[in-house]
């Protein structure tokens, strides 16, 4: 990209930001808090430095077990959702890759139609937010945990499938070539030549998505599931900010641990 056109792009972006802010009515008067807002804001910010371990509505209740339980439920929801979306993502990812269809005696003109239609399906799955999937699925099936997990799994399967198909199409061909020389069949070449070459990247990406799944699982608590979101929703609604901060910090802790873990896996898998 030429430097001048890049400068125009950057200025354009900043202008778009200003125009958008103006369109939304973002001015200093709407953020500058009134006296009443100041007290709420002050209480919220000062509560950040004193998260509580006992319930603010009933001092006799210790919220540590509840917090740990909610953290664990969040993990379990994320893990279950990831396992479903991996199955769907791998299957759809294979079907959406150009290489898969080039293995079979399908006429060259038909192939784009085949992977194109799978890619359209993937785009549709991804383009609806997990919260909206949750609203629909919970309406269809009632407040069941499986519906919540499926709601996360559908858009995640779409995202995984898109990225996996790109990884499969870009995987090094050396092993596949060697297998072809040795007389392997099409399916053998794909399964033993291409997939193993793409697996480190796919695994690394799946671990990164797990981190995102944790956040999504936490949000689904807003719908009444026992994840961290439920308690954040509850305590903020009652303006028990010290309690809210405890749950927020619990979520941050969870994310930090998994971010470290997935980061370490990614470094090991992609560098080695």
């Amino acid at each position, binding site marked *: *990209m030429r430097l001048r056109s*890049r400068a125009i*792009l*950057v200025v354009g*972006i900043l202008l*778009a*930001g200003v*125009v*958008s*802010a103006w*369109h*939304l*009515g*973002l001015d200093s008067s*709407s*953020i500058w*808090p009134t006296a009443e*807002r100041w007290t*709420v804001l002050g209480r*919220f910010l000062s509560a950040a430095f004193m998260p509580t371990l006992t319930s603010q509505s009933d001092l006799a209740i210790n919220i540590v077990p509840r917090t740990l339980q909610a953290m664990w439920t969040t*993990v*379990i*929801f994320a*893990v*279950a959702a990831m*396992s479903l979306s991996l199955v769907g993502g791998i299957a759809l990812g294979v079907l959406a890759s150009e290489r898969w269809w080039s293995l079979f005696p399908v006429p060259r003109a038909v192939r784009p139609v085949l992977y194109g239609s799978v890619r359209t399906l993937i785009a549709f799955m*991804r*383009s*609806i*937010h997990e*919260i*909206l999937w949750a*609203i*629909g699925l919970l*309406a*269809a*099936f*009632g407040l*069941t*945990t*499986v519906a919540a997990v499926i709601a996360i799994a559908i858009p995640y399967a779409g995202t995984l499938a898109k990225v996996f198909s790109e990884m499969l199409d870009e995987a090094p061909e050396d092993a596949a070539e060697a297998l072809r020389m040795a007389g392997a069949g099409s399916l053998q070449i794909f399964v033993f030549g291409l997939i193993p070459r793409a697996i*480190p990247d796919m*695994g690394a990406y799946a671990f990164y998505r*797990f981190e995102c799944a944790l*956040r*999504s699982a*936490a*949000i689904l608590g807003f719908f009444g599931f026992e994840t961290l979101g439920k308690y*954040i929703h509850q305590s*903020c*609604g009652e303006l028990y900010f010290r309690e*809210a901060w405890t749950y*927020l910090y619990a*979520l941050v802790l969870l*994310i930090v641990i998994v*971010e470290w*873990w997935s980061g*370490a*896996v990614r470094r*090991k898998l992609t560098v080695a």
Partner: protein
Amino acid sequence: MKSVEQLYRERPVNRFGRVSTLLMLGLVAFAWTSGVFDFGALFTERAQGNFTRFLTELRPYPLQGNAWDWGVAGEWLDEQLSGKVGAAILATLAFSIAAIVLAALMGLAISLFASRNLSSPEPFLPRPRAPTPTLRRCWDAVVWLSRGWLIFARAIPEYVWAFVLLIVLGPSAWPGVLALALHNAGILGRLFAEVTENSDPRTSRALRALGASRFQIATTAIWPQSMNRFLLFFFYRWETCVREATVLGLLGFAGLGYYILEAKAALYWDRIALWTLIGSLLIVAGDLLSAWARRLVR
């Protein structure tokens, strides 16, 4: 020449990756056997009845129980969308753009403090005299504080930020924009800091030798050479901002999600499906635009 057995024995083994995969498989097995998830709940008579009723309610209201008629469907569509859809799409887009620009500016500012090569006692030049330990520790603290802040900002999901800020700041567009901006500033700040740390130090060194300040080095040496990567990340996060902006309306902000909230309160599933589909078209359009822009800067 090595035998196949020898090659197999000498292949690189990634133990950390294996342990992680095993741990993950164990978690998966535990999750599905813990009894929290019951697939049977989807197939009870009540759930099945609920599901079939739900499917009929997805049809446009005037057509429920009638044969499909394009004329009636068109009228219904016109009635639902007229005067609303353009404004809703504009508001959603405005949310995403205002938020991502704010996020990029915040991320850019914090990345200066979070990158180790700039936040050091003597950036880019070996000093004749070694810095005092106190000075070194102060700069380390700057790096860790700004990184801690970035981690915190991105650990909280946009939707949770929006909900909390709505309560704290009161109703206006600010909580929504700030929510998207804070989460994305956490992500962009880290990515920008990584790019800054990996930038070619030669220009920075030359400028430092001439006595340039840290800020001058950043704006004249580091940012110009990293701008393409910054823009790449910027458009990649804008894509997710559009996605998140469509659901912000569920908390009461203007935009597509607001009509979903409205229809949900009255249980009009046909309208919910319609607005969800419009949102999905907007997201696909945003994806295509972002992919085009990223090809442009690559």
